[in-house]
């Protein structure tokens, strides 16, 4: 039995749109990005987003093992999203479960369109995402960190992939759902974009939304993602330094 009691808040969002952590619907949690924090990886990044703490590392382009996976005309991209046993309130058993297998796939498909895979024929680029502490929105935080790690590794890319989740709580479309909204909200929509061309590379929805709410969610998502993209560029331009910001007035 875990030593943890989940407490459902009485009100998820007030009538005038104040959320359980005091944010407005369009506000992000505080975000902090650090690039190049691992010595042995070819590229690495650490993202702290709300209560999330996520490490990403990139190895490659390097030789493919096992050999039968080699793609003669382009690089193979492999992604592993993994949660630490101590990243959740209840200890998570080490190793991949069905959720992390799916997330590894959608994250790979979010990042791959940005990479010039044809530049690295016959090689592999390995992307590892380790969730050290989880607090809703780990996949989008992981995408932001992995994108930074790829750039830090010097992989040729069309641009950076930035990501953010949007959710629905009652009639409100909210940006960057927190733990409570993730647990008891009505809809959750993680998205990632290649900001150079404003193309969507990750989009999932879990929970119903009207067409109007969906449009609002897409717009709110794009606005938040642009904000993250600007942060990513700043983090990369100041290598090995910390970029820290808390958001008061919305993204």
């Amino acid at each position, binding site marked *: *039995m*875990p*030593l*943890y*009691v989940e407490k459902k808040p009485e009100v998820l969002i007030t009538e005038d749109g104040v959320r359980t952590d005091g944010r407005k619907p369009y506000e992000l949690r505080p975000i902090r990005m650090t690039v190049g924090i*691992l*010595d*042995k*990886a070819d590229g*690495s990044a650490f993202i*702290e987003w709300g209560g999330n*703490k996520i*490490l*990403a*590392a990139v*190895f490659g382009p*390097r030789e493919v093992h096992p050999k039968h996976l080699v793609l003669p005309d382009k690089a193979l991209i492999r992604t*592993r999203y*993994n949660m*630490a*046993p*101590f*990243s*959740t*309130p*209840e*200890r998570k058993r*080490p*190793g991949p479960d069905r959720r992390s297998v799916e997330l590894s796939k959608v994250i790979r498909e979010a990042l791959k369109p940005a990479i010039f895979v044809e530049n690295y024929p016959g090689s592999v680029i*390995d992307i*590892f995402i*380790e969730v*050290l*502490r*989880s607090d809703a929105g780990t996949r989008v935080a992981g995408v932001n960190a992995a994108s930074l790690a790829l750039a830090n590794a010097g992989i040729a890319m069309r641009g950076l992939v930035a990501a953010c989740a949007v959710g629905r709580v009652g009639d409100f479309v909210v940006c960057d759902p927190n733990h409570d909204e993730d647990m008891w909200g009505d809809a959750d929509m993680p998205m990632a974009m290649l900001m150079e061309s404003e193309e969507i590379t990750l989009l999932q929805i879990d929970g119903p939304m009207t067409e109007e709410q969906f449009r609002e969610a897409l717009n709110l998502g794009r606005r938040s993602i642009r904000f993250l993209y600007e942060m990513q560029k700043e983090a990369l331009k100041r290598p090995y330094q910390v970029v820290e910001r808390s958001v008061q007035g919305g993204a």
Partner: protein
Amino acid sequence: MLDSEMLTHNLLREYVRDLVSNGQRIDGRGFHEFRSIEIRNGNFTKAEGEAWLKLGNTQVLVGVKADVGEPFLDTPDKGVLISNTELLPLASPTFEPGPPNENAIEVARVVDRAIRSADAVDISSLVIIEGKLVYMLFLDMYVLDYDGNLEDALTMASLIALGRAEIPEVEVKEDGEIEVKESKWKVNLKDIPINFTFVKIGGELLLDPVLEEEQVSDAAITLAIDKEGRICSIQKKHGKFTMEEIINAASIARSKWPEMAEKIKEAI
């Protein structure tokens, strides 16, 4: 730890050996000197106790998670302490995803043995109802960046994480229901058993080897010293040692213990 798949270049071997024969190491340290130790603070996990420790370029993160459950049948009067090491593929180009391999299992067991044989965590104090309900402590050791000597880094980080752990108290109601309370208790560290890893290169003993030294070493050994100065566990890894060398290693480790124990106490 020596990974047989690591390509060790003869050049590196010669270079490290030449240095050692001149009384030097690749990073300029003395033979019996640890790399600098840094503890990162920052609530990095959801564990009840945690420690992110940097030993030179080696980085590890240890989390202690607690749970309640049934004790093992043969030890109804003892709680449960389970140690696990993950050699994450992001820590080294030579680590691959998958279940723990023999290296990961060995490291976890070496750390566990030091802590257990020194009785550092009083597992009898983890009993709630004898034979029925006990606290279970999971010591999850995460290797983030591998530049040699995981044993010592993980042991120090584990002791800090255990010493910092604050675990919710539970109350068993009359109907058998378990209530998790707001109040917390702290794990009482009765001892600070520290592992000291040496490699042998050209007949010399080098404390706290970096990755390159591990790769070119002739032999490796890890010894744990407790607060009484006793050796509470030993793990000889690859290669061979003379008796004098092991006795020498133990006396070096013993002389280093107070300084390292002080660092651990400070971090807790």
